[in-house]
């Protein structure tokens, strides 16, 4: 296993049509923990995650991993807010990343069945993935992202439109993954979820990192006035 961390962002930004979506961001993240990204709508949470993962083009500045960038990309995965289901069976969705990584058909199948069982999809292996319910889709997307055992997993509001039960199941999977050593960077709207999962918090405001602190300090200490207002549920601009 290679080591991605620490990762350093220097003046990194994403622009679209002349408008800066996020940045310039200066940030250093260490190898341990669960980073929760919070902030009001339009603060640039999604753009920050996409930029770090490399699916949004860097408009300026730099991102430096502790290993070569191609290697870093190979050890990351991303779970989108709207889970992207390939038009295949549950099993087909799970074997795809393994087959890309060069595993044999039989090995990939065994591993996929195991992964599906772990997230509670073991009895719907042959169901077409686009026909799953919202919660099942997100669990499948999560299992598919974790199946290659990435060192770092990005999650963009994975529970945004899910009911309580699906949210709890997803949080359980995430807690297990974190305990097994997967580094999580996740954005969320749900402050309860942020409190439950976070070991550190990134508070974004207007495309910039307003605060970067350990979860304890952020939630129970004395964060900035804007962060306090945001936690209270006020509208922050």
């Amino acid at each position: 296993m290679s080591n991605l961390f620490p990762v350093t962002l220097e003046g990194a930004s994403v622009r679209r049509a002349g408008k800066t979506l996020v940045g310039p961001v200066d940030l250093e993240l260490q190898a341990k923990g669960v980073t929760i990204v919070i902030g009001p709508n339009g603060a640039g949470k999604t753009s920050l995650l996409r930029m770090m993962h490399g699916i949004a083009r860097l408009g300026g500045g730099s991102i430096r991993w502790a290993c070569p960038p191609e290697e870093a990309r190979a050890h990351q995965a991303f779970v989108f807010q709207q889970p992207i289901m390939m038009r295949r069976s549950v099993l087909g969705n799970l074997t795809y990343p393994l087959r890309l990584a060069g595993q044999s058909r039989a090995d990939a199948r065994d591993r996929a069945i195991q992964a599906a069982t772990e997230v509670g999809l073991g009895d719907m292996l042959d169901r077409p993935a686009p026909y799953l319910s919202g919660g099942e889709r997100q669990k499948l997307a999560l299992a598919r992202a974790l199946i290659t055992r990435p060192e770092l997993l990005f999650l963009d509001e994975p529970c945004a439109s899910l009911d309580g039960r699906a949210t709890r199941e997803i949080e359980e999977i995430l807690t297990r993954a974190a305990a097994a050593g997967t580094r999580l960077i996740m954005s969320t709207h749900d402050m309860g979820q942020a409190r439950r999962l976070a070991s550190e918090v990134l508070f974004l405001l207007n495309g910039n990192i307003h605060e970067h602190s350990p979860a304890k300090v952020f939630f129970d200490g004395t964060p900035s006035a804007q962060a306090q207002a945001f936690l209270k549920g006020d509208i922050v601009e």
Partner: protein
Amino acid sequence: MLVQCAFGDDILEIWSGITEAFWLLVTLDADLVEITLRSLYVTLTALVIASAIALPLGALLAVRRFRARRMTIAVLNALMGLPPVVVGLIVYVMLSRSGPFGVLGLLFTPTAMIIAQVIIIVPLIASIAHQALRELWSDYHDLLISMNTTQTQRVQALLWDGRRALLTASLAGFGRAIGEVGAIMVVGGNIDHHTRVLTTAIALETGKGEFALALGLGFVLIAMAIAVNLAIHVIGQTERGGRW
């Protein structure tokens, strides 16, 4: 009175066409079987070759952003309306004794007909395939980029997961090729027992005034087109239960 008579004649003509077709089929008329099989051979071969070219091309146009992309798509769409007779003429010139490929001696052979049909249906299949796969690609874009796929792997994923839509594209190509007469008449020459197919036979019989036989052949052609379409759909759906 006169109009009614003509109308009656037409009905009679169609009726005798149906009976003619019926007898041709029931007696498995040797000539009919031969030209039907040749029709199928020429068109299915052209379809396989054209699909092998056009489907990956459609996928590549969806996945890849290159400078001439818009231009290529516009040209493909324009070529969908390519007049078959003109294609036939160009292939004829290319394959004729004095043409660049004259030494191959392909003119007035089924191979020449296949070449002409491939040229006619490649733009059609590629264009429809591109339309269908463009949508699929906008779904898959973020995921496949996130997974670090190569261009080839992206094309493969689109071709496999979009296979139902691609079947429709290929069937459209089949429809155009099986009913085509202009190009294969020019390059094939409608030679009996050699390059005669259903459409050229119909043109010939119509020209000779043998309307019943022409109609009979026409019904066989329609029945065959429907049968091939149904067969392909059945194969496509039994392969997996779900539909998408």
